């Protein structure tokens, strides 16, 4: 796993496959307390208590294609490695919320990676889902909502390749604080 985006995309893909309509991704860096906080929230089908209790186990998956499910297990491993914390709450037919706390400046923490590309892939995976990205680094805040983009686009699909590429750049510039 080369970057944090790779871990987050696993959690986002789980939300996408859980038939969510709305998915929120919150990434917050507080350098003063050396914390990287990631919260993924969905309104998908959720998990029952038994599945939730075992979700970090690599042998837990409800897919039929292969007997191991590594997405959540990888994230748990990262948290274990560097004194982080992973908390997942879920209710069937209500949704799931995943909270990750990691030390921001730590030798075992990979770089954040390409967040714009990550969001582009999620939107392309299912354009009917609405995604919100909230990025905060100390005083800087960037907010992105596919609902607003879809409003601007009218009858044009958000998953047209040139729109997707625009979104990727727009988010990456917003994260750096360079948008107009």
């Amino acid at each position: 796993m080369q970057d944090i985006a790779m871990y987050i995309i696993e959690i986002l893909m789980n939300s996408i496959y859980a038939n969510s309509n709305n998915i929120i991704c919150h990434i917050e860096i507080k350098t003063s307390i050396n914390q990287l906080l990631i919260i993924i929230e969905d309104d998908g089908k959720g998990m029952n208590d038994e599945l939730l209790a075992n979700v970090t186990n690599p042998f837990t998956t409800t897919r039929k294609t292969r007997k191991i499910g590594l997405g959540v297990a990888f994230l748990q491993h990262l948290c274990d490695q560097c004194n982080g914390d992973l908390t997942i709450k879920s209710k069937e037919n209500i949704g799931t919320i995943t909270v990750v706390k990691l030390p921001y400046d730590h030798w075992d923490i990979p770089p954040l990676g390409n967040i714009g590309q990550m969001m582009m892939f999620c939107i392309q995976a299912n354009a009917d889902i609405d995604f919100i990205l909230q990025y905060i680094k100390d005083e800087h805040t960037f907010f992105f909502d596919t609902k607003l983009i879809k409003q601007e686009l009218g009858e044009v699909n958000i998953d047209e390749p040139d729109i997707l590429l625009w979104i990727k750049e727009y988010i990456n510039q917003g994260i750096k604080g360079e948008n107009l």
Partner: protein
Amino acid sequence: MKSLEDLKKMREKALKKVEMRDVNKKYRVVVGMATCGIAAGARPVLNKLIEELGNNDYPCIVTQTGCIGLCAYEPIVEVFNQEDQTKTTYVHVTPEKAVSILQNHILKDRILTEFTIDSYQK
């Protein structure tokens, strides 16, 4: 510098294109984006495919799929011919191979046999 204003222009451009473009694309190009696909390098492949389709007209759409159950062969790109319902499975795909698939298979109906799963399994 990007601003939300760009979307208005892009919308107008897209609306013009939709009128000219035939609605049914011949091919569907599917990238495996499961855990092992991503770990094996599916992200730069999908990114490249979206970039190519954003800049050129190809008779295909690009979509994603989850686990195909062929981890050892990831990154995997499947090409579905929607006219004759055939499927070609390309394995160990790189961004360069992905462009080659578009330029040969999608544009010229020329299957790149040496990159398909059949030639790897021999």
